[in-house]
């Protein structure tokens, strides 16, 4: 695995050359190439500045055990917007659940302000892909629910709920139930609910995957605006590279089966950003190339393995082994 990662690093395209950009555009520093972190994984020490960190985390689930994550280490700085990107089923959501405290690692440590996480806590909120608003409560009651659990008084709840409804532009829909809201409105409601108790970190689990392109862009702007305004640390999981580049201060590439960190890309683009920026497009392309290389490498390894076993063992029809191990 280690050697393979090295080999992959050698194939990584060099930094895209900075193109002359029109003076009117904010000049993005596009010399930030993919920084391969494989060499640092072994001696990952807790970063004293980090608000949250994974230290050599592995996770296996099921019987027989299937390895979901293998030796994952990274840290999140306070106020940082970190995006996790990678192919589907790659354990990105599992990393989020670990940070939320909903899952415990098989080995390694998940740290929050230097202490191991031993369960969910209010300073780490989650926005789920399906919004997960409670259907039996109105939008207003949904947002007030975490406040009530946290012991806020009725007056405080009303005030904070109204503030949040205004923040996500849903004041008019305060009395609506989830099924009466559109997908985008539901996600905005879920974001408001997550922000209710002023968490230090918000974890987003592919929240816009089910939305159409325009709505997604609108909500990306909203998330950027809200996260900036509240100074919240954010970890945002997505399988869309442009979304990661659009929102992240840093993008982690997560490989699949088992999930592991393949690369760590700082995104030094000026904010507010737009998806179409030249710098953003170049970064998206270079990250896409990295991921494609990884996917191809995995596919090649799998195919080679199948060749080897079928030739040496029984010489049967090799076609039967194509895709073996997928």
């Amino acid at each position, binding site marked *: 695995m280690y050697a393979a990662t090295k080999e992959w690093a050698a194939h990584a395209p060099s930094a895209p050359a900075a193109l002359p950009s029109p003076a009117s555009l904010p000049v993005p520093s596009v010399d930030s190439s993919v920084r391969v972190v494989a060499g640092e994984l072994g001696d990952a020490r807790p970063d004293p500045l980090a608000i949250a960190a994974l230290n050599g985390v592995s996770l296996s689930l099921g019987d027989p055990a299937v390895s979901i994550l293998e030796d994952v280490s990274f840290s999140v700085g306070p106020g940082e917007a970190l995006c996790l990107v990678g192919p589907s089923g790659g354990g990105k959501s599992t990393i989020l*659940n670990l940070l*939320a*405290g*909903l899952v415990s690692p098989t080995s390694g440590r998940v740290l929050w302000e230097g202490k191991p996480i031993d*369960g*969910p*806590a*209010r300073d*780490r*909120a*989650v926005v*789920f*892909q*399906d919004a*997960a608003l*409670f*259907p*039996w*409560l109105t939008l207003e009651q949904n947002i007030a*629910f*975490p406040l009530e*659990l*946290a012991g806020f008084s009725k007056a405080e709840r009303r005030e904070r709920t109204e503030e949040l409804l205004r923040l996500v532009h849903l004041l008019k829909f305060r009395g609506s*139930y989830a*099924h*009466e809201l559109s997908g985008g409105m539901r996600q905005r409601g879920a974001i408001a609910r997550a922000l209710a*108790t002023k968490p230090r970190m918000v974890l987003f689990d592919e929240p816009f995957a089910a939305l159409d392109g325009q709505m997604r862009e609108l909500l990306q702007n909203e998330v950027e605006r809200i996260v900036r305004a509240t100074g919240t640390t954010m970890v945002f999981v997505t399988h869309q590279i442009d979304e990661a580049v659009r929102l992240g201060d840093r993008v982690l590439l997560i490989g699949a089966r088992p999930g592991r960190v393949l690369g760590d890309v700082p995104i030094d683009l000026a904010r507010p950003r737009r998806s179409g920026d030249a710098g953003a497009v170049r970064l998206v392309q270079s990250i896409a190339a990295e991921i494609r290389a990884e996917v191809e490498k995995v596919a090649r390894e799998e195919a080679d393995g199948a060749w080897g076993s079928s030739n040496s063992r029984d010489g049967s029809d090799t076609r039967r082994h194509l895709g073996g191990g997928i």
Partner: protein
Amino acid sequence: MTAAILVAIWAAASRLAASALFPGPLDVARSLAAAAAAGTLARAVLTSAIRLLVGYAIAIAIGVPLGLVLARSDATKRALGPLLLGLSSVPSICWLPLAIVWFGLSEAAIQVVIVLGAALPVTLATESAVRQLPPTIERAARTMGARGPTLIFRVLLPAAMPGIVTGAKMGWTFALRSLMAGELLFVSGGLGQLLETGRDLADTALVLGIVAVIVVLSRVSERILFGPLERAIARRWGTATS
């Protein structure tokens, strides 16, 4: 309208049969009016209703928590699941002989039958409703700090409410059936006994009248008990009302 046509057909058929064994709607109404005037009908309805409500309340009090435990604890599910599924295929009236041996010809014996009849569908419906909740509902609640009783009473049970109400409604029907079967079998003072009285006296008009009363009571009670709940659920979940 349809009811009027059906009653007209019934009246015509009864006239054609011209037999005391097949009374027409007028005979039935007359016989019911007589029972009502004598006070026997009201007393029987009241006796049966109280019995039913008590037994049903016990069944809900057992069924919902048991279903919840079955859904949340795999060990309990493995231990009790097959037993409960087996029991649910036994008509509850089959327990009456045993109940009579244990409790005698008493209120308790009928209650056993009602509770056994109603608790099982409520249990199974609650279990499947809680099991089928989207996992993110519970995860979201846990990240907000909901644990233990808060998680159960403020999140899991409300979230499972549509399924629980469906089960509770089924339980009500089962309770009513068990009650009638139980009341038929010994002197009990309820509607079932009034049916028996009708049979003893070969008063077919009274028997048919009581059947009509049972139909009406079961419909009306369902409306009263579940109508508001079902409307609230339809409003919140966006499902169609039945």
